[in-house]
């Protein structure tokens, strides 16, 4: 593959409608009395959310809450018993209005950490604790309080004006995908009276309608079809900037064209810079799994990737299963911080030798918000047993414990990043109520357009997607529901020079260490044969040589010594992940040189480019046998010639070792090999 590991996943060819509605007026069913005790995703309705732990049981016991807002859910058991009283945003008693639990601290960012015991943190925590209202202090909650005079209200889906086709949020305002799927619009809102079976010809249908939660679920056709356009958002109080599962794709290498590759820290940095320049208060959070491979290069990439996150001012970063394949000391070397302010990694269930090295959570204060963030790594997501110096605790107990710690520290909005399956994450939120948002990494593909509801839980779920191709924005507002947008990190975000410098340092470090410093030593080729270089092949196979010299394969090494266009500033010919497909005599899948394969520009000038022997196998014996007066029998010569042949019907598989989906997606198009790629290098044996 062409520099696998530095390539960033490529967009699929599908088309997708990208629209947002304009002038949409929002209401949020979650804000009515039905939302009693639930943590306040939306803040404008009073929500004594600081006490949600104490009342979460109420939410669960509510028929509608129990039924969840899953649009596919059926009628809640007690729906017919519920009086059809429309919710009203200002019905909430003033005493239950969200307790402004912090003094006017301004917008200054303050952090505190679980696990660290600094004096300043204790002060902050005690202050926060003092200021956070308890259920007793807040009096009756929005459900009417313990007196039981609450009014059950049927959820009303958000009103939504007829949607208009609109550009999707990319920096240049161009559609994320072609807007070819725009369907006729159908207004989606309905009112509470619809829920009254007596007023409908189709009681069951109407009753089920009331379970749609348009604030999170996809909505009907004609509603907001595409991802939200964050550029149309009103200024949020706080913006959670959510990423995860980078999986080693730290930068797009450009192998397949930068316009076809999404992701990379350089674009991410630019995007964050743009948001900050708008005056948005960002709380960047990463779900972990920054790397993909094992060994020293993986450790270096983990370090550099973490440095990038640090420069981007990430506040909380979790661990993924690939991260856990590093040694405990490698992880501590990056995760440990001398002061809490410098710390970035958090984990509710991963212990590296001693809990003091990585805090269980972090509390980020932004204005009136106190965002608690922790991370959980599902042990079932681990591919292999971790080292004995590392402990990965059970998810349920760990999530409950750290939630308690965050609440005690004064968190008013609780975020859990979870590495594991979506199903497990959903069950965890049912088992451990109290988190406001769960960010799930490990799923393949793209993040959904909207946060997902979880049946039996008030927690909202978003996913990060794979390979760091998207950033998720969660806008938190004091006076309206949260907003969520997924933003593809396309080439329209220019590379940030700060990150390019970091990438250059990464390559320099690889150069300084050399292959031996990376623990890489040449391995014998399974065939036992040796490489001789393309020119030797060309002595007899002159026509094939001409074809090769005219192909991109001949320039493969040059392309990483002097990368073209935007990537020209950083040479990559010391990076094994690039070398493996850009020189001759390497194992492209294991990023290792074969004995007699390429070692350096100076030592291996005959092995530059992606030469004949990468497909046909090392040819030393064959070449020697064909020399004049070699003394090799004709039978042996035939055998060696046969061994070098690669029939066309098997060639494609060999090509795909380098032309993989990440670095050469076009190769995988229908008939692309036969119609495009093979004709470029078509050659047959000797002249």
């Amino acid at each position, binding site marked *: *593959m062409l520099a*696998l590991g530095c390539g960033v996943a490529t967009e*699929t060819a599908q088309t997708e*409608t990208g629209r947002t509605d304009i002038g949409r*007026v929002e*209401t949020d069913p979650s804000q009515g009395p039905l939302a009693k005790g639930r943590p306040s995703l939306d803040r404008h309705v009073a929500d004594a959310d600081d006490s949600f732990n104490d009342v979460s049981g109420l939410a669960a016991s509510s028929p509608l809450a129990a039924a969840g807002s899953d*649009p*596919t859910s059926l009628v809640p058991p007690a729906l017919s018993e519920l009086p059809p009283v429309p919710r009203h945003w200002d019905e909430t008693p003033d005493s239950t209005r969200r307790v402004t639990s912090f003094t006017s601290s301004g917008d200054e960012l303050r952090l505190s950490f679980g696990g660290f015991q600094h004096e300043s943190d204790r002060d902050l925590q005690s202050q926060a604790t003092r200021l956070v209202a308890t259920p007793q202090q807040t009096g009756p909650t929005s459900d009417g309080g313990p007196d039981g005079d609450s009014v059950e209200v049927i959820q009303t889906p*958000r*009103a939504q004006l007829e949607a208009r086709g609109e550009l999707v949020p990319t920096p240049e305002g161009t559609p994320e995908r072609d807007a070819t*799927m*725009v*369907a*006729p619009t*159908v*207004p*989606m*809102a*309905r009112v509470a009276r619809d829920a009254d079976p007596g007023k409908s010809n189709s009681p069951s*249908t109407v009753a089920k309608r009331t379970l749609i939660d348009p604030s999170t679920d*996809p*909505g*009907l*056709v*004609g509603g907001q079809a595409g*991802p939200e356009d964050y550029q149309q958002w009103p200024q949020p109080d706080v913006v959670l900037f959510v990423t995860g599962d980078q999986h080693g794709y730290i930068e797009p290498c450009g192998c397949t064209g930068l316009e076809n590759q999404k992701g990379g820290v350089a674009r991410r940095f630019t995007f964050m810079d743009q948001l900050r320049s708008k005056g948005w208060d960002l709380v960047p959070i990463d779900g972990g799994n920054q790397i*993909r491979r*094992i*060994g*020293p290069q993986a450790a270096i990439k983990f370090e550099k990737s973490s440095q990038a996150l640090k420069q981007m001012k990430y506040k909380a970063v979790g661990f993924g299963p690939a991260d856990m*394949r590093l040694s405990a*000391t490698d992880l501590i*070397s990056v995760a440990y911080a*001398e002061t809490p302010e410098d710390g970035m990694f958090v984990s509710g269930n991963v212990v590296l*030798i*001693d809990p003091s090295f990585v805090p269980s959570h972090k509390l980020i204060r932004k204005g009136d918000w106190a965002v608690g963030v922790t991370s959980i790594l599902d042990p079932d997501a681990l*591919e292999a047993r971790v080292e*004995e*110096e*590392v402990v990965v605790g059970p998810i349920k107990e760990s999530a409950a414990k750290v939630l308690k710690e965050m609440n005690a520290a004064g968190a008013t909005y609780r975020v859990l990043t979870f590495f594991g399956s979506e199903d497990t994450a959903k069950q965890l939120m049912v088992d451990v109520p109290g988190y406001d948002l769960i960010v799930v990494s490990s799923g393949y*593909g*793209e993040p959904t*357009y909207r946060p997902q509801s979880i049946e039996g839980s008030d927690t909202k779920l978003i996913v990060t997607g794979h390979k760091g191709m998207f950033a998720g924005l969660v806008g938190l507002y004091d*006076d*309206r529901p949260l907003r969520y947008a997924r933003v593809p990190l396309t080439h329209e975000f220019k590379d940030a020079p700060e990150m390019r410098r970091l990438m250059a340092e990464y390559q320099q470090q690889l150069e300084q260490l050399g292959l031996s410093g990376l*623990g890489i*030593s040449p*391995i014998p080729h399974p*065939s036992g044969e040796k490489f001789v270089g393309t020119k030797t092949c060309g002595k007899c196979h002159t026509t094939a040589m001409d074809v090769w010299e005219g192909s991109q394969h001949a320039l493969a090494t040059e392309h990483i010594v002097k990368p073209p266009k935007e990537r020209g500033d950083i040479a990559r010919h010391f990076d094994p992940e690039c070398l493996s497909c850009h020189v001759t005599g390497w194992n492209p899948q*294991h990023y*290792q040189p074969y004995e007699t394969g390429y070692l350096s520009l100076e030592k291996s000038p005959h092995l530059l480019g992606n030469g004949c022997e990468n497909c*046909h196998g090392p040819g030393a014996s064959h070449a020697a046998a064909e020399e004049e007066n070699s003394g090799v029998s004709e039978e042996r010569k035939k055998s060696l010639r046969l061994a070098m042949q690669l*029939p066309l019907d098997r060639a494609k*598989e060999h090509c*795909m*070792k380098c032309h*993989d*989906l*990440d670095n050469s997606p076009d190769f*995988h198009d229908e008939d692309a090999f036969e119609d495009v790629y093979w004709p470029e290098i078509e050659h047959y044996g000797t002249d």
Partner: protein
Amino acid sequence: MKKFWLLIPLAVVLGTSFAWAMNYVQYGHRKAYLGEITMDGTVHAGNVMEKLAEYQTDANAVAELLTEKTYDFGALEPGAKGKHEFIIKNSGKEPLRLEVGASTCKCTLGSLNKNVLAPGESTPITLEWTVGNDVKIFEQSAEIRTNDPIRPAIRLTVNGLVISDIEFQPKKVTFGEVLSGESFEFSTKMYSYFDDPIELVDAVFGSEEMTELAEFEFEPFDPSADDDVYQHAKQGFRITAKVKPGVRQGPIVTPMQVRFKKTGESDATNTPDPKDSTDATSESTAEIVLADGETYVASAECAGRIIGSLSMIESSKLKTTSGGSYVWTLGRLDEDDPLEYKAFVVLKGSQQDEVNLTIGEVYPDDVIQASIGKSVGRGNMKLFPIQLKLQAGQELVDLLGKSKDDFGILWVESDNPKVGRMKVAVKVALEPRP
């Protein structure tokens, strides 16, 4: 009395202003948020219900999925293309509108006219994908959005396993940090999906040094439910590598190559090509190469590090040298920079409880002071915090190592003869401080 009449309007004005201000502070600064009801006067008591009705859909379209919404594709080889059709039917009485939402693969909505499905009509929805790299389980999904008020979105999912003829679990084997002079072992499971039974011949590492010190054990087993996604493999082998002491210190990245033969009936049509690789597109699965016409080779990536008893946790400031000592680079410190720094000494090995560490010789001792704190540990590892205190003077202290020996030095000493001492060079320049 005159003033009384003046006071009345004044009180009215003040009272009104105060009331307005109170109201504004309490509510007025908030944007009206009344859902469907607008504030521009177009909605009033007389037409409110009619207005609200505009926002409803009375669409009686019913999206019925005639197939399961999740399809398990079983197993596919890496790089294979897949396609599956789901069938959706409009069981309602009004047209059903469909569109594709967030998707992870190519999704085609049949050949519908304007994506509208007439009552009673059905259409196939096709998901197509190519099985990607480095995945064990593939999953692709597409979100179909509808105007069915009950099912506004249907998520169609296909999933399955990505397997080659030979799979390793784990595929990337890490043996962690191993104390130099100690033996170590690690294992992985190898699964065969070949129809013919296979027999393991031997195994080697890419590193000849490790191969010479290694012994391999092959323990066959029958895959079962405990093997999770590999439970349907035809055969399983637990491969354990036991490596004797003697591997040189440093990082190691090397493939473990397992050679095996088929022992069943030879299938002429299944004769592999010497360069054939059944999993050519996936770096995460074993490569299979015919070595001599009848022997196959499957390989898994292995990595770890051989370390000494004493080491330090590296950071951007603290790096090891080729000689096994460490360089702590603090750079040029002016009067605003801190003078205290912390790092960790790692004590590895089973004898760790019998070892006490102290700071030995320090140079120059009027500039550098160091102390070792209380250790924390788990398993065979203990970490000792080492605190470095620098003393700035009236003149510049230059220990940046511009010439040989022109840097600070401290030694970490052990009271156990089996654990050698460790040298740490400190590269720093201290600006004069008042």
